């Protein structure tokens, strides 16, 4: 048993207690079968999710729930740097949002998301004041690369896909520092499924090789070059390629719809993190808790949205993600 493993004993015990506050499948079923949005919000209020009913409050509570989970991890983790990979994707999103505002000459950036490693306002100021020296390396490099592309090409979509690919590569780099195979396998799963989503969309819209080279991140389970080659040959060839890969099981989901595939990817992550429920040592239960919270937020968001457009319970059930607890 390594010192690193035992360093998380206290944090894991606190996570076990906090797992009690995650919504159970019975809670989600109660939300699904609530007679309307108001009744669903009342259920969430009973569970301590929101203080008052109303559309504005539920949006705030999604944000608060995500931030509270992150704050808990920051409070209990013996080495907070090891958990940076969980939110680094939000930093890249914030860079994207700030760059777009900068290019459009809109001083106020509206779509920042939290939690993040760097306070969003610092990213905004660094981009608008062209003073990036105080930013961490990953953010500085990402801004410089994307800024140059934006200035040269004025192609916002290219900048977006470059940042998305850089975010996944950065996430993998940070995850490798944890030296936990649970974490690195999880990030590999996220990166590989993200690549598959991009490849499928690219095959359908007939994107070229340069787009794929810029958009796809590096993964171990699926060769990037082989994926590019299969995508360039068309959708059917890509599906055949995927069916022969580690992710062969998802071809069926791919054929159903993009939403079904998205759900399959999320459920795959929950399935992977489930093993952490039985671990008492190491970083894994903390990581699993964060992903469980994200999945829970996504499910609640889906249920509330479906309730607002009055979808039947059966249709909502098909869209709701697997849960961790």
């Amino acid at each position, binding site marked *: *048993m390594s010192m690193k493993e035992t360093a998380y004993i206290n944090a*894991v015990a*606190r996570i*076990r*207690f906090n797992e009690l506050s995650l919504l159970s499948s019975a809670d989600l079923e109660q939300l699904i079968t609530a007679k309307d949005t108001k009744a669903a919000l009342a259920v969430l209020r009973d569970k301590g999710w929101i203080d008052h009913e109303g559309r504005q409050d539920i949006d705030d509570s999604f944000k608060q729930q995500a931030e509270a989970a992150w704050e808990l991890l920051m409070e209990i983790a013996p080495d907070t740097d090891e958990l940076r990979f969980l939110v680094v994707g939000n930093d890249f999103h914030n860079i994207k949002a700030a760059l777009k505002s900068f290019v459009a000459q809109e001083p106020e950036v509206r779509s920042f998301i939290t939690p993040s490693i760097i306070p969003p306002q610092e990213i905004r100021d660094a981009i608008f004041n062209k003073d990036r020296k105080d930013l961490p390396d990953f953010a500085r490099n990402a801004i410089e690369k994307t800024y140059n592309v934006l200035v040269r090409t004025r192609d916002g979509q290219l900048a977006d896909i470059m940042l998305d690919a850089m975010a996944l590569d950065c996430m993998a780099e940070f995850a490798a520092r944890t030296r936990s195979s649970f974490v690195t396998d999880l990030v590999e799963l996220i990166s590989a499924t993200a690549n598959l989503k991009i490849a499928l969309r690219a095959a359908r819209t007939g994107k070229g090789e340069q787009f794929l080279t810029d958009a796809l991140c590096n993964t171990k389970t699926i060769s990037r070059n082989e994926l590019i080659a299969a995508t360039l040959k068309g959708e059917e060839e890509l599906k055949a390629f995927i069916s022969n890969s580690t992710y062969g099981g998802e071809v069926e989901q791919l054929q159903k719809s993009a939403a079904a595939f998205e759900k399959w990817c999320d459920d795959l992550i929950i399935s992977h993190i489930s093993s952490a429920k039985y671990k008492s040592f190491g970083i894994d239960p903390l990581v699993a808790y964060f992903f469980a919270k994200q999945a829970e937020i996504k499910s609640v968001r889906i249920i509330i949205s479906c309730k607002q457009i009055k979808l039947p319970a059966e249709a909502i059930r098909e869209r709701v993600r697997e849960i961790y607890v």
Partner: protein
Amino acid sequence: MDQYGVALAISGAILAALLAGIGSARGVGMVGEAAAGVLAEDPSKFSKVLILQLLPGTQGLYGLLTAVLLLSQIGVLGGEVIPLTFSQGIQYFMAAMPIALVGLFSAIYQGRTAVAGVGIVAKKPDQNGKAITLAAMVETYAILALLVSVLTIFSLK
């Protein structure tokens, strides 16, 4: 060589107390960390986690008991040290090894099991009896080692 007989016997006693004590300190410390995590969230679970924390502490007591018996057998505690040959010294030394080594490792493994048990208490406090039973199972081997050490010490002349 015979001059080392008593030194060897005393070394055995010291190792019994030392290694079993280290194991217990490690085990109790680990469970204490986990227990503190649960108590930070819910202080009402103190009595439940305390029992789990105490379990890996017994190996240290077994080591101490073995050391006291051994030192008493060779007259160190009585004030009149019995001269021992090198061979007798080795015998006493080896007699202390079961509890020294099994005590060290069983306390650490019992600590691990108890840490997992604290997780059970955190999520399902009504199941703490099962958590205690699982951790207590590891104790069996420490008791067996204690028996072997004590019986061997008493059988040596």
